[in-house]
């Protein structure tokens, strides 16, 4: 029991840090700083490296079965729907000039929201179950 709890905690913390970095990079990108693309690339590489490390270190934590696949699909669908609504809202808001964002900033915002909501919904569904 205790053995499984530790990797779970570590994985949650690492995921939270990664999510924070991705959002931060999105904000940096949105602010228009030219080094942002380098930072975003670094963040993506960091995410990949940490992900590979965690999967290697705690393989049982990342073992997939029908529950994780099914609930992961629910999370993906919910995240996709939120991003879809956001993209639609952004489209009309930009068209009506309610807000002013560049294409890069809009894409960055959708990217950050998609990643963030995916993590949130995945945690929620995996904790709640489907019954």
């Amino acid at each position, binding site marked *: 029991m205790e053995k*499984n709890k530790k990797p779970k905690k570590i994985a949650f913390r690492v995921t939270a840090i990664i999510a924070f970095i991705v959002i931060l990079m999105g904000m940096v990108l949105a602010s228009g700083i030219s080094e942002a693309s380098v930072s975003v690339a670094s963040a993506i590489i960091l995410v990949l490296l940490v992900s590979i490390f965690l999967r290697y270190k705690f393989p*049982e934590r990342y073992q997939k*079965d*029908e*529950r*994780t696949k099914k609930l992961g699909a629910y999370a993906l669908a919910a995240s996709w729907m939120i991003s879809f609504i956001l993209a639609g809202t952004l489209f009309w808001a930009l068209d009506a000039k309610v807000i002013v964002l560049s294409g890069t900033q809009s894409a960055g915002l959708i990217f950050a929201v998609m990643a963030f909501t995916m993590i949130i919904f995945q945690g929620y569904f995996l904790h*709640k*179950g*489907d019954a």
Partner: protein
Amino acid sequence: MKTRIKELRARYNLTQEDLAKKVGVRRETIVFLEKGKYNPSLKLARAVAKALQTSIDELFLFDE
């Protein structure tokens, strides 16, 4: 939905980990099944019933 997984698991002296390995799922999935928080596929329900030497009908109890 209620299940008799915990009761039958205890009868056959199986841990959640043992049962999970027998049916090829994660231990957490067995935890969720026992709590009635997850609706398994027919395939998994059959595998669990088989591992606990019972039938699906006797393993999963539905509120009518």
